């Protein structure tokens, strides 16, 4: 069945739910609204009339001989940051939904497979030890080195956890969970050691990186992260029906003809790519991957054909909204985004725990 329609004509739903089309339309509208709202927010005051002028200049519909500062601020600073927010939220939301489908548990989170802690460890290595090995790196190349190392670190740790989870010719999700706990703890210990041997300056840099922020998003980074997240979404959405069947259990799914091992491999790879790219560029932004799929399921049901794209859309809207607050609430300074999402996410997580306590 290639269509997404789930409701039978005339069927009476005892479970109150939005239809897939309504849910995804609502999600797209939320992203649009959040984007428009966030584009008007910022420490640098840009009146709506000025914003309109900037947009006209950008598409070449107005004379742009004079580069107004508003134009530079919006095009070079605010717009790439907004787009990075969309990419980050979409990547984290999609990855969260994939992990929850794979682990068959609504409390799963992309951090389980070690991407975030691997990226953090690699970033710490770069910040603390990089200055010993490569002290004269020009500053811009140095910041790209940080992004590259963090991305590689995330992938490497995920590959390690994936390898540890192989048993009896297949990937055991229970093993992956335990391996993830162990490797995450090891990465944390490594991080602690690097904290210890770092200088004051390196320590501050590392702590700031860990808190997560969309600040410093530039067009090159947006293009890179955006294309990786787009590829991840394309690959991930194709797994929707397989993940539905996996909800019956891996054995049953295999009997239905689902390529279970390949699905697991692809889901882990897509998660590592998306979350690795986002974390490398923005540091650690938590709870989006946990909360977005949960809300989509509450509103539209657990069918992954809705949950996967819906989580990407809702994740993007959430990050845009949170970042809009983060960069205006203490202006001209800025709150790290990871702190804000944690403040919002932890109470929500606890509320979810209360709801699921009978099933955990």
């Amino acid at each position, binding site marked *: 069945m290639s269509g997404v329609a789930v409701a039978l004509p005339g069927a009476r739903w005892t479970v109150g739910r939005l239809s897939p089309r309504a849910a995804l339309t609502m999600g797209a509208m939320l992203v649009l609204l959040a984007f428009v709202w966030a584009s008007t927010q*910022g*420490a*640098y*005051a840009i009146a709506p009339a000025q914003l309109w002028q900037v947009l006209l200049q*950008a598409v*070449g519909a107005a004379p*742009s001989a004079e*580069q107004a*500062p508003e134009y*530079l*601020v919006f*095009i*070079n*600073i*605010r717009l*790439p940051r907004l787009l990075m927010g969309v990419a980050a939220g979409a990547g984290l939301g999609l990855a969260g939904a994939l992990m929850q489908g794979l682990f068959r548990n609504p409390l799963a989170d992309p951090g389980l497979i070690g991407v975030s802690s691997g990226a953090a460890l690699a970033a710490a290595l770069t910040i603390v030890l990089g200055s010993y090995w490569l002290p004269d790196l020009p*500053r*811009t*190349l*140095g*910041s790209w080195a940080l992004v590259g190392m963090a991305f590689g670190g995330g992938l490497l740790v995920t590959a390690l956890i994936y390898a540890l989870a192989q048993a009896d010719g297949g990937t055991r999700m229970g093993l992956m969970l335990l391996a993830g706990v162990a490797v995450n703890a090891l990465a944390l210990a490594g991080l602690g050691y690097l904290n*210890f041997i*770092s*200088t*004051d*300056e390196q320590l*501050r*840099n590392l702590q*700031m990186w860990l808190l997560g*922020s969309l*600040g*410093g998003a*530039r*067009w*090159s980074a947006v293009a890179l992260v955006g294309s990786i997240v787009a590829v991840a979404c394309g690959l991930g959405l194709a797994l929707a029906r397989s993940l539905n069947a996996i909800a019956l259990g891996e054995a049953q799914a295999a009997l239905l003809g689902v390529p279970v091992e390949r699905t697991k491999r692809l889901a882990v790879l897509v998660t590592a790519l998306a979350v690795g790219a986002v974390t490398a560029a923005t540091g650690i932004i938590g709870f989006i991957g946990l909360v977005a799929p949960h809300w989509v399921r509450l509103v539209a049901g657990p069918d992954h054909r809705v949950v996967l794209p819906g989580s990407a859309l809702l994740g993007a809207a959430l990050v845009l909204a949170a970042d809009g607050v983060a*960069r205006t609430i*203490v*202006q*001209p*300074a*800025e709150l*790290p985004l990871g702190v804000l999402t944690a403040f919002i996410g932890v109470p929500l997580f606890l509320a979810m725990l209360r709801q699921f306590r009978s099933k955990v």
Partner: protein
Amino acid sequence: MWHDGLNDAVRRQLLRGMAALPLLSAAGARRAAAASPARIVSLGGALTEVVYLLGAQGQLVGTDTTSLFPEAAQRTAKVGYMRQLSAEGLLSLKPDAVVGTTEAGPPVVLDQVRSAGVRVELVQADHTWDEVQRKVATVGRVAGREREARALQASLDAQWVAVQKVVAATTRRPRALFILSHSGSPMVAGTGTAADALIRFAGATNAITQFAGYRPLTAEAMASAAPEVLLNSTQGIEALGGEAAFWQRPELALTPAFRRKALVAMEASHLLGFGPRLPAAVRELHTRMQAITA
């Protein structure tokens, strides 16, 4: 390196605009100074102090969180922690120039600020007297007050020479140890830190030579380091609840400093700021250490 323009047309526009900037800034700096003084954002307590000393506080539109002296600086707009700046936040103050040390960051944000036409000048921080001279010169240049800067420089140099003479005249070199914080094991300053430089300037020796940077020290290591005088910031002593509470820490009981309760506490930005108050700080530190270990 990547060029972060939106598309070809915009990039060409930006390049055209930016190519004009050097011409503008060189010729226009003097004109601008005379016409309208540059709006300055200062990142770092020492640099902010220099701004006030040069009489340029009217040009100061924003400072970072470490700029707390003089008291008026606390009432300027705060752009946040110097290592985690916000590009839009900085630009919203419409500065013409940003001065800071090389610790300011993240680098991408500073690049974005530069590409918006703001002059960004960073001073290398290496814990020497040169650092102070560089800070004075840079602020003078950026604020268009080179004359005042040269005068201030001369006065500070004279103070510095005088202090160094006083320090050289004393023969006793007490063993000193700077304690940063007291959570669990005390964090102490090894070599390469601002505190280490201060200790040496003030004619003492750092009891710790085995490592660089700030590290936690066990009680036994503290005993074998055998400092004769302990240094701390007044904020640090306050955080512990006063001098009496400070001396109750068990790891201090084994040190020579404990017997005479030899503690010198000075305000943090005065002691370690490496700004115009450095000669005065070194003099005070020297005097108090000599007195307390006599």
